[in-house]
């Protein structure tokens, strides 16, 4: 869109108000992180004595200690496992279902099923917490063996949104694609795998971004299902960075360790991430 010929007449006052609002937001999101960053390099007594001062000598060993004391490595390890498996299951499962929802002749059944799945977007996943916990516990899929249970849970939670985005997208692909593939003698799975899937790369990326953000940052369900060996990153950090325990310098270092990878990824891919999140939430 060419914006150069849009006429802009703004009074200095309104301009100042607009800038002020944005700067306020930027300060709010960046200053606490900046403060957290340099505070994580202070000694515990420096933090207690003066909350604003910079560290006299940066204590990089804080990070090493926090990593060990907080068992953050375990959190990262588990989070990565949950992320990878959930992504594979959600993207494949949602693509398969969406393809038949969008293109099969069973329109009525598809409508009902899609609407049922769609409720999952709106209903609070926390309301499944108790029965889900009891069910997975009775199968022995909590605590030490929670990994499978957590992967399945995250996959189910991510599925509704993914199905909605993908169905809309595949509906937009021409029917003739499917028909001509089948006239050429391609089987049903082959049509899906070789014709449809390659054309859905953009929507798969959108799905993957939304699912990844949700999975990586999910707290409550993972928290109640796991124990200290199977905990993902957010419950690990919450258990460690607890205001009632006094090792503030290590807690701050732990918080930094837990967000730095996300911030680096976001600063590189922010265009893709924002477009993915918005693209998923916009209808049509």
């Amino acid at each position, binding site marked *: *869109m060419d*914006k150069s*010929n*849009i006429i*802009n007449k*703004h009074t200095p006052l*309104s*301009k100042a108000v*607009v800038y002020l*609002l*944005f700067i306020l*937001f930027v300060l709010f999101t*960046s200053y*606490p992180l900046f403060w*957290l960053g340099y505070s994580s390099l202070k000694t515990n007594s420096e933090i*207690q004595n003066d*909350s*604003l001062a910079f560290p006299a000598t940066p204590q990089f060993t804080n990070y090493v200690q926090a990593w060990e004391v907080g068992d953050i490595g375990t959190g990262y390890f588990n989070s990565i496992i949950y992320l990878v498996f959930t992504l594979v*299951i959600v993207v*494949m*499962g949602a693509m*398969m*279902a969406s393809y*038949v929802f969008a293109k*099969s002749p069973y329109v009525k059944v598809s409508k009902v*099923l899609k609407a049922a799945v769609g409720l*999952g977007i*709106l209903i*609070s*996943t*926390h*309301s*499944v917490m*108790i029965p889900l916990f*009891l*069910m997975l516990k009775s199968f022995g899929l909590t605590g030490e063996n929670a990994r499978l249970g957590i992967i*399945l849970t995250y996959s*189910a939670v991510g*599925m509704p949104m993914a199905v909605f985005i993908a169905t809309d997208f595949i509906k937009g692909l021409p029917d003739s694609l499917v028909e001509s593939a089948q006239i050429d003698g391609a089987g*049903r799975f082959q049509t899906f795998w070789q014709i449809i899937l390659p054309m859905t790369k953009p929507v798969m990326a959108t799905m993957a971004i939304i699912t990844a*953000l949700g999975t990586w*940052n999910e707290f409550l369900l993972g928290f109640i299902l796991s124990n200290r060996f199977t905990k993902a990153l*957010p419950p690990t*950090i*919450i258990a460690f*960075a607890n*205001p009632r325990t006094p090792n*503030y310098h290590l*807690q*701050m270092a732990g918080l930094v360790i*837990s*967000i730095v990878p996300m*911030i680096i*990824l976001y*600063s590189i891919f*922010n265009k893709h*991430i*924002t477009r993915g999140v918005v693209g998923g939430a*916009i*209808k049509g």
Partner: protein
Amino acid sequence: MKDKFRKRGDILFYIAMVAPCMILYLAIIAGPILASLGIAFTDNDFRPNQQWGFIGFDNFIKIFSDDVFWKGLKNNMLVVALSVFGQIPLGLLLAYFLFRNMVKGSGFFQAMVFMPQVISTVVIGRIFQSFFDIRGAATGIVRAITNNPDFTFRWFIEPGQAMIPILIGMLFIYTGFYMLMFLANMQKMDSGIVEAAAIDGANEMQIFARIIAPALSGIIIVNAILAIAGSLKSFDLIYAMAPNDGKGLGNNNIVLATYMYFRGFKVYKMAFGSAVSVVIVTISLLLIAISNWAGKKLDPLQEG
């Protein structure tokens, strides 16, 4: 084509394709929701060797006669109100500023306002709390400015102020999401209308109120539904800022989700907790239905 499709193979193919998605969904979302509906009418806490039976509406009577539940509902409605009347209008306004190029470096601002979306909410809650803590930077700054070395934020101490940090946190975390949604929809609009209005001498207020806002009314309703649904899910930020057992100050910033967790799950009162979750689902379906209905009334062009 059609008769060719109506073959057994097609049905089998259909079933095979929807199976992974539907089985997961039924087993992990739909099934448990129905199960909690059943458990809610019993006193079965699933303790080993427990005697249990159906007790009718007793759990619900207990919920509705609990002051803490009403406090949680009130706090939750505050969160709903903040998202519908705070985050959405603010997001709309910020999106409009970006859309009309009123700031330089709009890409940077956009990225910064959206950033909290990519960080775990519980981690944000902890950072936020330590920032406003007695050892935090906000306290230090206010002390330096006001020259009062004893100043502390009372948000985490004073019962009446318990919701303040949570509401502020939510405003800053989620506004960026709505801003981007609105911006993307504005950019899909025909820019000719806005240009023509500007050439005809319409000011920004007029363009916003007469052209942009009406054109986006459908999207605003969709976002309001998402906001209401999201508000009733709010747990992470509150849990992270008040990691207590639901006693003391915990009751002052309790919302329905934390009420269910502290009063049901944490103390292993599974039947009571299930009843709470039934109440939460009912309230959210009700609110969603109302906003959906209002949306259709206000915007007849929007398709279901």
